[in-house]
């Protein structure tokens, strides 16, 4: 399978989990990594938190911005983030989904429709069920799903809810997810 994009969704416990998942990823990775994390608004953005973790550019996704390979994008807080057919981001202030804005479901569903079988969707620790329906959509449209091992997850509600909605999905520890992404290398092949 050749991936065109990775989407990651997480909530409580996610800041620390992402530090493991994103560690040492090489800039040769030829796809974008797009992340929704439920977190309270902060002015310094996410790039500071993950500074020096890997060689990729880390930035906040902007409305109608072209999505580029080798960049890690975070949804801005308080906006939903979607992927458009022309491989651009869009932002929205629609009502919260699963009490969340940004919502993982909104990102995952829109990404699934655009990248179909070229999408890798990953659900990590979290204390609500956002992302479960999104992951289901990714599976339906031929993408691959990975869920963090709920035994290991700081909060297991999000991984367990996701597992209820997908039938073929890999369960991995954070460390394994990290190795899996790194192994994709320049060709993005499994």
């Amino acid at each position, binding site marked *: 399978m050749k991936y065109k994009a990775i989407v990651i969704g997480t909530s409580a416990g996610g800041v620390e989990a992402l530090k493991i998942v994103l560690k040492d990823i090489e800039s040769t990775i030829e796809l974008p990594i797009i992340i929704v994390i439920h977190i309270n608004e902060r002015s310094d953005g996410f790039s500071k938190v993950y500074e020096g973790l890997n060689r990729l550019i880390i930035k906040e996704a*902007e*409305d*109608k911005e072209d999505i580029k390979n080798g960049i890690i994008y975070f949804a*801005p807080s308080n*906006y939903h983030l*979607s*992927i*458009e*057919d022309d491989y*651009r981001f*869009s*932002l*929205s*202030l*629609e*009502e919260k989904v699963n009490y969340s804005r940004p919502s993982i479901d*909104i990102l995952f569903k*829109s990404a699934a*429709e655009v990248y*179909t079988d070229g999408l890798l969707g990953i659900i990590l620790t979290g204390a609500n069920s956002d992302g479960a329906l999104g992951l289901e959509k990714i599976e*339906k*449209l*031929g993408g691959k799903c990975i869920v963090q091992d709920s035994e290991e997850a700081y909060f297991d509600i999000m991984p367990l809810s996701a597992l209820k909605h997908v039938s073929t999905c890999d369960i991995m520890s954070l460390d394994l997810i990290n190795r899996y992404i790194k192994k994709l290398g320049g060709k993005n092949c499994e």
Partner: protein
Amino acid sequence: MNEIELLEIENLELQLLIEAIYLRYGYDFKNYTKSHLKRRILRRVKLDDLKNITQLTEKMLYDREVLKQILLDLSINVTEMFRFPKFFKDLREDIIPLLKTYPSINIWHAGCSTGEEVISMAILLKEEGLLNRVNIYATDINEKVLDIAKEGIYSIENVKKWTRNYQEAGGKKSFSDYYTAKYDHAIFDQDLLKNVTFLEHNLVIDKTFIDANLIICRNVLIYFNKKLQNQVLELFEESLIPGGIIGIGSKESLKFTSVNEKFENINSTTKIYKKKIGC
């Protein structure tokens, strides 16, 4: 039928609905952000217990009320008094002194929704002694939200948040001076709206109608694709006097748009721009 085929059909149905709305009623949503359109329409399909988008299209063709509901669904009417207070604070500190130099002032609130930002602006202008010198034109595509805006009556449940916003925005009095609480409603002083003209205006097809000193259009552009964003920004540019000001949403930008060269960024966090003189 496999999932990819179903997805393609759903996308086709959406396209047909948009085309049908245009041909039947003249509202053009072709350049709205697609993911947004699709989510809103599918939400309506589900709420009305319909099987698919095509069923909604059929209902809409025969029933204007269904069209009105769709118009409401497509505009995101989440707003609040002094939303993003820093914006109003910066307006007060950086832009009001400029406005004071004009003998009369035209302000255009484009996409004013239910009017909370119009009232916020009127309060700010009143406190700065400018309210009698301004004409505010508050426009929206949607007549239903304009009716709410004209009333100036809102549910009182969010008043704590609004009061906090007002204070953070540099409010000089007590926020409660501007409304009367009655049961669970806050009825705003109609005096604030005396120089406000509410108009139905569709940014996609309608033309410019004023020489504006200030245009406020926040969190509207994100629902448009690149092409329509440029088109609407050109309309704003045309409507502003040289040296006129435009304020957009905090996650919106003029960078990479067709009008970028014609504006200078006064405040990068609150996205307030000034039209260059000589443009």
